[in-house]
């Protein structure tokens, strides 16, 4: 094996580390929300989360779902997914642990 080839082989694993995909929290949730022009405004989502008694830190679109990062009334950090059209609460995670799932929701 030439020195150059050895060096290339050595660098490959390092490049794999550097280029490894960046993770997105719970990005696998699917809401089957349809076209975006039918989605409710994010302001309504924030109001919905507030009505749950949560303090909202951040809202965003994740895949075809609305996602809320916030704190519950008892101070627990949560990450919740809502349907963008119906604004129905679908699933809630606490640090990766599922603590709520709407009956019948399997997305």
């Amino acid at each position, binding site marked *: 094996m030439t*020195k150059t080839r*050895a*060096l290339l*082989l*050595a660098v*490959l*694993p*390092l490049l*794999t*580390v*550097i280029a*490894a*995909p*960046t*993770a*997105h*929290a*719970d*990005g*696998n949730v699917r809401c089957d929300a349809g076209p975006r022009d039918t989605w409710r405004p994010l302001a309504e989502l924030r109001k919905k989360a507030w009505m749950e008694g949560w303090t909202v*830190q*951040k809202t965003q679109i994740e895949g075809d779902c609305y996602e809320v*990062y916030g704190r519950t009334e008892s*101070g*627990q*950090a949560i990450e919740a997914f809502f349907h963008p059209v119906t604004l129905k609460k679908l699933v809630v995670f*606490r*640090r*990766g*642990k599922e603590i709520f799932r709407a009956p019948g929701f399997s997305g």
Partner: protein
Amino acid sequence: MTGRFTRPLFWLALALPALLMLADFLRGAVLAMDLLHPSGEMAVRLMIAAMLAGPLAGVFGPNRFFRGWLAVRRNLGVAAFGYAMLHLAFYGVDMGLLAAIVDELELPSIWTGWLALAAMAVPAALSRDRAMIALGRRRWKAAQRLVYPALLLALAHWLLLDWQWQAAAAHLVPLALAWLALLIVRFNHRPSQRSHVP
């Protein structure tokens, strides 16, 4: 690492992502929670960069490139711990209250992170020549091997938070391949049984 300017420049390069994260946070462009992923990933990536040097040098021999890599291995490890502490700092800022942090300790995704940090702290604290002399090379090396459980715990922490095994596994694969290559090389170069027969 030699050179009057090389070492500070290398440390600056290692610190640059942290400085950018802090700058973004301080000017209000991102929340502390937005920096949990980048700081944690940097810690894992630097840890793996430090851990790859040994097995790869074993496979390809101690040429100039690997001698250089081995010479900065400790710097990479200490930087990895620095990013883990930054990750903890962002977590603390995000949580705000100590009671909220304590409340989360029971979650597997959280206590794996704390244990990973504890396991990293030992080799990081001993990453000095004086510690090596005081402990003796053998015990010092044994303490450094705590990076392996630290890495596994850090990846478990990541996996339990995200449930995206591909990203966590992609970080483990290079190290597994490097160790596999080293085992193959050692197996092929082991002295033949027959050569010992008089």
